[in-house]
């Protein structure tokens, strides 16, 4: 079993597909001086916000800072997989 698990083991996804993408990502983090705790807190707030507007977050929330060279700013790209909550679900949640 252990032997089989060696092949089955979930591999961690690479942070970027190419060296150039990875460099962009690495530099964005460095330039925006974003620390992981701050980012986690931000993720939590986004989930709360989705809930407030009637969306259920159904997958991993991803926030990727990207550096934009033209005006030297950082763009935060958030990917939030959601599903619109049913009105029945909302009623139940309200009661």
């Amino acid at each position: 079993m252990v032997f089989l698990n060696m092949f089955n083991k979930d591999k961690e996804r690479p942070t970027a597909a190419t060296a150039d993408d990875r460099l962009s990502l690495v530099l964005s983090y460095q330039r925006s001086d974003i620390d992981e705790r701050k980012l986690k807190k931000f993720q939590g707030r986004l989930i709360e916000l989705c809930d407030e507007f009637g969306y259920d977050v159904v997958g991993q929330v991803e926030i990727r800072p990207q550096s934009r060279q033209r005006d030297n700013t950082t763009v935060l790209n958030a990917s939030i997989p959601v599903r619109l909550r049913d009105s029945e679900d909302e009623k139940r949640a309200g009661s």
Partner: protein
Amino acid sequence: MKHKSTAITVTSGKGGVGKSTTVASVGLALAQLGRSVCVMDTDIGLRKLDLMLGLENRIVYDLVDVIEGTSKLRQSLVRHKEFDNLALLPAAQTRYKEEVTPAQVKQLVDELREEFEFILIDSPAGIEGGFRNAIAPADRAILVVNPEIPSVRDSDRVIGLLESANLDHIDLVVNRVQPGMVKDGDMLSVERVQNHLAINLLGIVPEDRRIIRSSNTGEPVVLDDKSMAGRAFNNIARRINGEEVPYLELEETSLINRIKRIFHIA
């Protein structure tokens, strides 16, 4: 007659990218062009420039001795064997970087400006005290980068530190480029590195096995006509000297080179 003097700090952040090789090669190339040059090693405790220039046996006094007043500046300068207009101010090998302050290094460079047109300062790796000593007297900086992510990230950080120290004239040298690897997508291209760092490109230096031999023999590659890296460093010196020189064509076009690559003997 008083000449205009320029102090250039060669830095990188990451170690092992070729700072000392760049200083020795460009320093010697500028001397070959007839300019008076002092190369100054600020890597106290881990000096290298003396070896790169084959001058290790001629050192009597060093930078720390001058700052402490144990020796005069003239006594500490080591003249090159072939080029009298090139001098080395060596770092101390048995002292610590913390024993010298940025203000002291600045004062020392101001003294060197009286005699030399170019003062090339070899910065230690890192961004601590030694780095601050090296950038304090600089009029401009050369950032040596290898086309790999750790080196580019460190350089990006160093650019920020240089700018916050009001050092705005920063040029880029991309060292150890392997065109074959770039072509295969295994190495960042010079263009991508420059785009990310957004500073002026001063030179592109290819990976060259002759560099290893030159650091062992103490003869910088600029003296070797067959060395591509030597030609690249000569071109960098000419650009610093104010000439317009096109970048080297690094594409591997010859059939022999392609065959060598196939059999991994390039």
